[in-house]
């Protein structure tokens, strides 16, 4: 596949350097790290090195705080279920309305089938967390807070370090789904009150099927997978050694490229955003433009539907994503757009461009060039468009 790939919040390309690190693990270095012979020892050493590479990216105090898992969803599920099992008397959970389904669906299940009380903290029109509501929800009955670091759709960042300090003061464990944030913004977990953190390899140029859960030393933990003694008995099952080695290499590369991500990639994203807003009437940025990931841009286009936009972009070889209902097969637009109060007139047309260190200037030029035509073409088909047009400067979204 060639083309312009601006869907890096969905998944990223495996970095060729990552792949090169992994390949020997499929051929000559195939041993089981647990085995008492040279085949195993060679692989075991690599797995432990990868653990240190991930530790460095997170700024964690100890490498033993890193537990390798199959990815973000497993890490999220493990963090929450482990804590609930470790604190059986605490029957409340705090989360936010804009979490990833890996957290939201689990919380809904725990609420319906296991009788837990779930507090879902709302957000304002820019996607910022209602911290007053958060403070009110905290109590000694709360077992765990699970709030994402960065939102996958808008890139909006939550003040997780401050939220974690408050949770600790209230006696609750704090978990953050940092799948979108890890590798894009600097972290120092050693100095934070964050107890548990989920990350996923394929969001940072490692392959799919590998991830990690950070478990701060001293955190009460109950494994979800029981069996062997792997990962200090916190995650049984023979290690996915190639994936782990790939994640380690990707973590090291992410640290290396962090400055680039926050300067060059951010500038590209800003240029894309300015270009689209200037050329296309009746559209606006969703989320908090002043406090978000450097690679993410989410623009809502009024009176058209996201899947149609994606199909036409795809004709130009451009890959993006949409919170529209139709792309997911559901009938409701994205819960994130709804939670921010983005009106239906625009929520269905919300389109996410997520860049990476692979994105080039020329690619951004192409998107800025073709997007106005795509939007105009669909609006010409829309029964709602005639008469709604406003000059870019006159246009103010109906919500603030």
């Amino acid at each position: 596949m060639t083309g312009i790939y601006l869907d890096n919040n969905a998944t990223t390309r495996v970095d060729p350097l990552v792949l090169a690190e992994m390949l020997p693990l499929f051929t000559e270095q195939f041993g089981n790290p647990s085995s008492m012979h040279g085949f195993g020892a060679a692989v075991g050493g690599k797995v432990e090195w990868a653990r240190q590479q991930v530790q460095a990216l997170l700024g964690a105090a100890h490498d033993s705080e890193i537990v390798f898992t199959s990815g973000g969803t497993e890490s999220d599920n493990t963090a929450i279920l482990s804590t609930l099992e470790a604190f059986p008397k605490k029957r409340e959970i705090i989360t936010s309305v804009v979490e990833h389904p890996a957290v939201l669906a689990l919380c809904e299940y725990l609420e319906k089938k296991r009788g837990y009380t779930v507090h879902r903290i709302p957000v304002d029109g820019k996607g910022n967390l209602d911290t007053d509501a958060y403070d009110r929800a905290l109590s000694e009955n709360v077992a765990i807070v699970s709030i994402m670091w960065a939102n996958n759709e808008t890139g909006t960042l939550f003040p997780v370090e401050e939220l974690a300090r408050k949770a600790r003061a209230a006696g609750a464990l704090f978990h953050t789904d940092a799948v979108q944030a890890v590798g894009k913004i600097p972290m120092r977990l050693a100095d934070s009150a964050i107890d548990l953190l989920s990350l996923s390899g394929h969001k940072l140029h490692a392959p799919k099927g590998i991830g990690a859960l950070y478990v701060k030393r001293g955190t009460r933990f109950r494994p979800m997978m029981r069996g062997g003694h792997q990962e200090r008995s916190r995650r049984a099952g023979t290690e996915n050694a190639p994936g782990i080695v790939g994640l380690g290499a990707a973590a090291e590369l992410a640290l290396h490229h962090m400055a680039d991500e926050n300067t060059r990639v951010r500038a590209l994203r800003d240029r894309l955003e300015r270009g689209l807003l200037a050329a296309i009437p009746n559209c606006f940025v969703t989320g908090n433009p002043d406090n978000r990931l450097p690679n993410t841009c989410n623009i809502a286009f009024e009176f058209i539907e996201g899947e149609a936009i994606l199909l036409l972009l795809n004709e130009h070889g451009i890959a993006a994503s949409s919170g529209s209902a139709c792309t997911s097969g559901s009938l409701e637009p994205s819960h994130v757009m709804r939670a921010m109060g983005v009106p239906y007139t625009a929520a269905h047309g919300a389109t996410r461009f997520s860049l990476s260190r692979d994105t080039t200037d020329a690619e951004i030029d192409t998107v800025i060039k073709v997007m106005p035509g795509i939007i105009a073409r669909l609006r010409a088909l829309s029964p709602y468009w005639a008469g709604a047009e406003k000059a870019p400067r006159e246009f103010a979204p109906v919500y603030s």
Partner: protein
Amino acid sequence: MWNYTDKVKEHFFNPKNAGVLDDANAVGEVGSISCGDALKLMLKVNPDTEVIEDARFQTFGCGSAIASSSALTELIIGRTVEEALRLTNRDIADYLGGLPPEKMHCSVMGAEALHAAIAAYKGEEWADDHEEGELVCKCFGVDAAMIERAVTVNNLSTLEEVTHYTKAGGSCQTCHEKIEEVLETVLARAGKEMGASRAPAAGLVGLDAIKPLAPKAPAPATAGKMTNVQRMQAIMLAIEEIRPQIQRDGGDVELVDIDGKDIYVRLSGACSGCSQSAGTMMGVQMKLVEKLGEFVRVKPASLMPAGV
């Protein structure tokens, strides 16, 4: 990525009859911007001949919504109002070579807009018969209220029974958990428990006692009296009758085995690996139920129990 047919793509990328029809004398508007799709259908009907001479549309919605609107206009231009009224959403989907199950509602929207426009032409009130309940089965457009009614009225207690009575959950199966939730709620109200869903081992779940979805055509006179050989021949004949339709879409279907009420088939060509193969299976099943006058299930050969 949806597995859209070439025909859907053709009608999305180059829609026919898009735009405003200035001298329209019948307009139907369905859907809304909050639902994520809406269609305004404009017709020019000749009052003397009742022939739809021209049709245009404006659509807010996804690729298949736009393609369905375009297909609808192509299907109705040149037909009389009465002929057009006989069109169903199935005809729109068939015209497009099929739609993914999750997208069937786009064809429903087309059919509704047509009925709304014709009602407007005749000066009648068109009543949207959509229920307000949460849509549970998206493939067949079945909502919670309809499932609740079916469960209450017919004393249903298993997921399979719900599927047999309402079609809900009969295609892509993603809504099975939701159906069970509705079922549990209704049964709990009546102080009952949900029955175990199991493969239809005849006699155990009393499948024979459950009336199948009423077949449209009267059951053949021989139904129920058929010998095994006659029944097998009837099944083979029915499959042969369905094949041309599937072959038109570049696929094929082959009868592999008959095991009581389970009929195993193999889809091939364009059908194998197609996201709509579950829908195709359902279509074959409905045809067989109709032909045999008894309830049977059509399953992919890959699900055959070992040793059959």
